[in-house]
């Protein structure tokens, strides 16, 4: 029997103005990052509410990363400052419930940081891969 190689499924929420452009730049520069990262574009990192993160895990994500503009650079002035507090609180709650903290991350990536985007994704995928499948926040009905 052939053992299928485990590849984590990563959902990356990227803000339209910085991080998505950063991802675009990474692509233009032919920088590699794993195809297991599924990018969801959002108008601002602040658009991501906790439900999105949990739903991503429910639907089979093994890790969720949220990328936005650097603090101070938000297209809407202050969106990412709110994101910073919100996600800090949400992630620490997930941690409190015993869900591995390595599965969640917030990273600030500007439109000019294609290399940082690729490096972040590579790093995050490795980090999540080391944990294995998401078992603690899974919805068994959604498993194939």
């Amino acid at each position, binding site marked *: 029997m052939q053992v299928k190689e485990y590849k984590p499924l990563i959902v990356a929420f990227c803000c339209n103005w910085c991080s998505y452009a950063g991802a675009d730049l990474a692509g233009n520069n032919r920088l590699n990052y794993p195809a297991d990262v599924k990018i969801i574009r959002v108008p601002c990192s602040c658009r991501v509410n906790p439900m999105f993160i949990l739903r991503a895990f429910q639907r089979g994500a093994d890790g969720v990363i949220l990328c936005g503009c650097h603090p*101070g650079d938000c297209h809407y002035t202050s969106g990412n400052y709110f994101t*910073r*507090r919100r996600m800090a*609180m949400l992630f620490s709650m997930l941690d409190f*419930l015993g869900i591995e903290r390595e599965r*969640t991350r917030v990273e600030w990536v500007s439109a000019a940081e294609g290399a940082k985007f690729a490096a972040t994704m590579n790093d995050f995928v490795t980090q999540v891969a080391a944990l294995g499948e998401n078992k603690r926040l899974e919805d068994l*009905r959604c498993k194939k």
Partner: protein
Amino acid sequence: MQKITKEQLIERASALLRDGTVNHVLGWAQGEFDYDITPAVFSDESSLTGNFVWNDFCGANFSKYLVSKCRTLEGKILVFLKPCDTYSFNQLLTEHRFDREKVYAIGIPCEGMADIDKVKAICGDGISSIDCSGEKLSVTSIYEDSPISVNTADVLTERCVNCKSKKHVAYDELLGDEGDILDSARFDEVAKIEAMTPDERFAFWQNELSRCIRCNACRDVCPACTCEVCVFNNPKSGVENKAPANSFEEKMFHIIRAFHVAGRCTDCGECSRVCPQNIPLHLLNRKFIKEMNECYGEYQAGETVGSKSPLTDYTLEDLEPGEVFDRGDINA
């Protein structure tokens, strides 16, 4: 035993009804066994004298009722508020959830409320009455010839053991003496769980949350949960659900609920009081409060009207989410 008596409250409420200051009284109504007390609206003196009760089992927080009663009742409503209830009262005012002009709030001191399950753990089933008028509770049981004496301190509800404040932060009139903000140990239990390994924490919460039957009592009693249509009831939200069909569902519900009240939760403890399955839901709320206190400065929701909660505010120097974790490591 409560320092202020039922008679004093009835007398004051009657006087206010009589002189027309208020038209309705939101108070506690007598049940079958002295501990099963129901919130009720009293509109005349005779119903007050006949049914109004104030004893060690009057746990219900009336603040949330003001949201609906201000809409449905004509005239002014008198509401009795224990110190912890006044925080929810203020928080709802901050959120413009009821009309302050329609409410006459009387602050009443509270010596802590008793937990009937703890009483039963000592006295067993078969309680026919509980006399709360003495220093100790005097419990009469059909299985005992004489009443059992129970120390009030031994049967206090968790939230009263860890009472954060005996001071009223809102009222039109105060009966009895004002108390102080207390140095409470309410975060100790949270710290204990934080000190566990992730595996232990997961096992702990798995055991607790798996008991959830999604009766929504925690949500429906919560003074911070006043959405007109809850996201979990709205078929268009995509997360509407009525049963914990899966272990994910119950986690989702409780995480989102705790998050939604984070910064607005005054830690009144109603959620844990009403949970039929004894899930320590207050720990989720306290985790958020503790975390926000540590990261963004001390904040007590409802302490003043109009204050800004940490999650609707920011500073340029806030900790990064990763740093919040690291800070946790240092603490542990």
